[in-house]
């Protein structure tokens, strides 16, 4: 469903993503892990058409991100890092904006929006302006926008960060259900415990390069935890003795 071949992104001389190759089958949940600034979000931005790759290509549902970006955008749902919301619209207006652009009728848009907002515990606040909403509310709004048009592939950048535990649980259940119904889900996250329980396979990216790519079943069989594997590739800095603290 998602196939990346030597995907790279350079900003001047800086190489943010260096020849990333991935293969994610339909209906699976894939975790994309790595420290801050390692290239996770840049890779996701290339998959979703926000950034153009400097070299390489990726196929999503058989369509190339370089030659068919519009067709891909119709098939995917995205929760971007910056949430990509418009300041002066309410949560409800954001959903009403998205539906018709993805070809949904007014009735379908409103029906689906209501279901999603109820699930995300956002219905009561649907008329709140996003600029005056909390980070969690804004994230839920962006997530509802990503799900509204029933995408075949879902890209989620840090979906659980800033979300309350109850909604977090609802999102996990929803993602599991979607995966069972054939939706491919690509998640970046720093919360390793959540990723460990949710994903079918994962990759660790360090300094723009894929350092490791494994199935979760392999990890479970080997008796290791995801955190242990993660720290095999990511250097951990010891905490210094700050004599001035306390």
């Amino acid at each position, binding site marked *: 469903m998602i196939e990346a071949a030597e995907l790279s992104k350079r900003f001047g001389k800086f190489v943010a993503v260096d020849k990333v190759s991935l293969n994610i089958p339909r209906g699976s949940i894939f975790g994309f892990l790595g420290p801050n600034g390692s290239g996770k979000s840049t890779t996701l931005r290339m998959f*979703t*058409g*926000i*950034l*153009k790759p400097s070299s390489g290509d990726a196929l999503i549902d058989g369509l190339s991100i370089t030659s068919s970006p*519009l067709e891909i*955008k*119709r098939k995917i749902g*995205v929760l*971007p890092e*910056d*949430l*990509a*919301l*418009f*300041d*002066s*619209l*309410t949560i*409800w*207006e*954001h959903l*009403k*904006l*998205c539906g*018709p*652009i*993805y*070809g949904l009728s*007014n009735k379908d848009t409103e029906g689906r929006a209501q279901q999603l907002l109820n699930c995300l515990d956002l219905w009561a*606040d649907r*008329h*709140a*302006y996003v*600029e*005056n*909403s909390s980070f969690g509310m804004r994230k839920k709004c962006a997530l509802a926008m990503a799900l509204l048009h029933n995408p075949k592939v879902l890209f989620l950048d840090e979906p659980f960060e800033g979300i309350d535990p109850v909604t977090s649980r609802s999102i996990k259940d929803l993602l599991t259900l979607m995966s069972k119904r054939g939706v491919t889900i690509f998640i970046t996250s720093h919360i390793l415990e959540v990723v460990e329980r949710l994903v079918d396979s994962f990759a660790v990216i360090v300094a723009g390069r894929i350092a490791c790519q494994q199935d979760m079943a392999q990890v479970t069989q080997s008796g290791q935890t995801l955190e242990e594997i993660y720290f095999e590739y990511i250097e951990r800095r010891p905490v210094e003795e700050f004599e001035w603290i306390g």
Partner: protein
Amino acid sequence: MDRIIILIKLQWRGYWRRVQRAGHLTRNNVGVLVLLAGLGVVRYLQLIPGLARELSSGTTRRYESVLVLLFLLWMLPVLGETRRSISSRELLQFPLTTFDLYCVRLSSIFISPVSWIVGACWIVLIYPVWKAANPISGVVALILFLFFGLFFTLIVSDLLVIKPGRWALVGVAAVVSLGIAFLFFAGRLSYSSHIVKRWLPNFLVSSAAVSSQAALSILALLGMTAVALALSVWVFGVGLYMQQSRRGRRLFLLPSIEIPGKYFGLLRKDVRYASRLLDLYFALPLVVLFNIYLASNSAPSPMAFWLVVTLLLVPCISLAFNGFGLDNPMGMDRYALLPLSSRETLFSKNLAFGLVTFLLFSTMLPLAIWRLGVANSLLGLMILISIELAFMSYGNWLSVNQPFKMQNYRFASGSPIDAFMGIIVGSLPGVLSLFFLKDGDPAAVLKISLVILLCLTFYLLSLRWSARVLERRWELITASLS
């Protein structure tokens, strides 16, 4: 004090980094602007010896006009300011008092070279004042007026960014307008304006320089400046801690109607953004005055209507010439995520511009139909369409090539050269139509239709070409809006 200085230093650094990022002198006509500003300063300096002669002989009329001009010029760096590197709200987390934050806000104004030029123009005025009968009191009054102007502009600027403040300004404007109308109809406008004029700051400043009641003028100015400072600090503090309502409200320009179609959501957003740009509000007095003219004149002229339609779009040019200026990088990311082609994205921006200008036009339409007839009103609509197409043709090209960030409740601070060129190009179909209609040419309608057709062709070409540029320059445009 150190903590305020370090914050001002950071603001300074942030400002100049943004200027450097914007590019070189040829970008956005900065070089031409510097040249024009230089010529303006030279012309101003040429005016100074004449002012000195007039003040030494006790004539103050031109001096008072220059003071009004400088007072209005203060508005440029404050109401046209681009985003500050660190907003006052972002500093609330630090242990700083409201007055500390106010000092940072006040000092930030002087980071912009525009304020240096305006400040220098004030300082130069000391020379002619020195030649007046009361040089010392004249200079003191001038300095007080400088600060009064600064505080007054800050009050207006800070009121504009909070909702009750905007209503307060509308209220003051309404009361003043009603007061003037009442005095006018009571036949006492001339007498009252004579009394009011004596208490206007520019009159007090000139009076301090030449009259025998200098002390009284300075005292009055001192009082006004102190009140302005206190009000300015108070308004700043209120705005700083004011929480915006979370609940959505209906937009007065576009009520909660639902229009089917995939662009409606984007249109709603863009019209809402547009309603926060101050430039647009210059069109309102034009519309109001013309409606009064239509209602009160016994035989209103259709030519006047067509002329007003031609002028109506001028205050809206920033929307056409800088289509993405009110968006931010997050909004641009959403545009990138939506399954819309670059052409559709630009088209949605053009639709919003068309809708805003049509809404302004429609406020004149009922009276125009009543007083001028349906045919003349339709001709007005045809003129509007031709001008809109011309503005959008030129505007699309500018929007993708020279985008710049515009701030809510501020004037757009784009290049006046581009604006001037755009007004000439955009108004051309309107001027042509007026020319055809002037002599009652029977073929005028046909000719205007041809103009519309020509404008439509240019528009479609511009849309096609600009969409390609937009696709290529998307990341650059997004970066220029941060």
